């Protein structure tokens, strides 16, 4: 049963993104221009930029990363959209998923008909220690960070709680990483577009070349178990459990449902949307799930009149491998305590019962934090249109879900899209 209070429907009429990666010579505005031009290419009918009435930009911390606050009007100007209303939305790594929801609400309210949503983050100008410091400000800097926590540490702590509660096997996390790299290897926009097998083989080849002892890894799991190849970052999270530091931009165009066909013959409809917040990690009743994700998911399902079984594919927030496993449970794809088994049984691969992160996820595609939420939506756009190339899933998917998390779960936003025949 649909329970939307929205006074009108909202459609997605185009989606674009820059390549994600490390781009020393590009700034936020350059990355966003690339995403915006890619978005324009995705719109299959005439598109007049003058029809855009407002701009919502997801960005976590250009003030820390680039010493540039007040980013939205600058970016709007850079793509020629002044003087439209331009708002920067900040909810840590969920910034652009939240920006999309805010933009949709502005259309649903009747205020605007056509709204541009963006996401951008330029993280790699700073030395890694300062990037870590900047990211830490997404946590509670008064009481969590002084304890010695880092972001990998938060998710690692949830991982220890999860492993203990469900007697789960730690290697389930490796399977998430292997699967996401397999998918990312087929995504030309991915930062690490290589399988872990390829990474392993190239390390062996380098050892041969340099006359060193060649490691005897027989498969990806042996490679990932080797702490020389895959060092601990925050036990039990290793290097290959962590998404990278990245630069990137992403953009989508939203329009009121009744005019969506002016832009596209095959718009996607935003049929469900939900968002919730939470306190710092110790303030929650559970450490094995993200309560905000469960609530946001439930809201989105109720609005769409759907159940988890109706979802054909999902892009979930795998900032760390354990986060993907928890997400697949929080969203109801698997029972509590079963997500780790599903990952090991490859039920979440492109060929599994519930394809998760066909884009490569944040792990392989990259995680320019403010751009990641719309990076997910880009994948939903491609998969639902059958244009995901080699990584296209079969079965004519028509419903996709995006799950975007801020911090260690203080923010979660879930958006569900539908392609109608």
């Amino acid at each position, binding site marked *: 049963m649909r329970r939307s209070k929205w006074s009108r429907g909202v459609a997605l009429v185009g989606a674009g993104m820059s390549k994600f990666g490390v781009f020393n010579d590009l700034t936020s505005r350059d990355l966003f221009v690339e995403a915006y031009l890619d978005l324009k290419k995705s719109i299959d009918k005439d598109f007049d930029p003058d029809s855009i009435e407002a701009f919502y930009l997801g960005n976590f911390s250009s003030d820390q990363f680039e010493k540039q606050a007040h980013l939205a009007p600058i970016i709007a100007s850079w793509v020629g959209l002044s003087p439209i209303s331009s708002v920067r939305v900040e909810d840590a790594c969920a910034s652009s998923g939240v920006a999309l929801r805010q933009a949709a609400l502005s259309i649903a309210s009747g205020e605007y008909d056509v709204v541009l949503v963006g996401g951008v983050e330029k993280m790699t100008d700073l030395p890694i*220690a300062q990037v*870590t*410091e900047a990211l*830490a400000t997404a946590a509670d800097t*008064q*009481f*969590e*960070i*002084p*304890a*010695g*926590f*880092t972001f*990998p*540490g938060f998710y*690692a*702590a*949830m*991982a*220890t*709680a999860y492993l*203990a509660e469900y007697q789960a096997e730690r290697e389930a996390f490796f399977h998430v990483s292997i699967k996401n790299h397999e998918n990312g290897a087929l995504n030309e926009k991915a930062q690490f577009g290589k399988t872990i097998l390829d990474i392993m083989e190239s390390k062996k080849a380098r050892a041969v070349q340099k006359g060193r002892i060649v490691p005897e890894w027989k498969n990806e799991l042996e490679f990932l178990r080797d702490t020389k190849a895959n*060092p*601990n*970052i*925050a*036990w*039990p*999270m290793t290097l290959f459990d962590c998404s990278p530091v990245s630069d990137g931009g992403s953009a989508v165009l939203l329009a009121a449902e009744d005019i969506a066909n002016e832009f596209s013959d095959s718009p996607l409809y935003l049929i469900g949307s939900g968002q919730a917040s939470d*306190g*710092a*990690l*110790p*303030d929650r009743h559970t*450490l094995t799930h993200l309560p905000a994700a469960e609530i946001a998911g439930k809201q989105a399902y109720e609005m769409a009149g759907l159940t988890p079984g109706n979802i054909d594919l999902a892009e979930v927030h795998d900032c760390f491998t354990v986060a993907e496993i928890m997400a697949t449970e929080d969203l109801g794809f698997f029972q509590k305590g079963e997500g780790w088994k599903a990952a090991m049984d490859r039920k979440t691969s492109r060929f599994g019962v519930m394809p998760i992160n066909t884009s490569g996820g944040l792990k392989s595609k990259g995680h320019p934090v403010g751009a990641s939420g719309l990076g997910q939506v880009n994948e939903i756009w491609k998969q639902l249109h059958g244009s995901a190339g080699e990584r296209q899933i079969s079965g004519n998917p028509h419903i996709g879900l995006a799950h975007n998390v801020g911090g260690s779960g203080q923010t979660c936003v879930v958006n569900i899209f539908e392609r109608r025949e």
Partner: protein
Amino acid sequence: MKDYTFNSKEFYEALNTSELIGSRCQDCGSYAVPQRRICPKCHSENVEVVRYSGQGKLVAYTVIFVPPVMMAETGYDAKNPYCVGIVELDEGPRISAQILEVDMDQPENILIGTEMIMDTITRADGENKETFLAFKPIN
């Protein structure tokens, strides 16, 4: 003993004298740490500052091999990692803290559910010296 207020910074002031403070709601009985002026469970403002026994159990942890700047300056690194975790106090609420006297070389042997007692740890020297919350196993 000093009467602490709800000012969140006083949590660390108390910690400097090895006291762990928080709050208890006089309407619903739930505890919070650090102290909260408004009860997060029932919204009551009828809340008092309390001192905790400092005993609890470990509910989640990690061993950090890549430390943030503050911890690196204290001497931690991949060869000298440290443990940080979340402890559930006997009174109910949970808090983040550094975990001392556990086996950093074998993180898998650190057990969730281990009974813990509060300690403090100082980082930096001289004027920058600061006291932080820590816990260690009771035995």
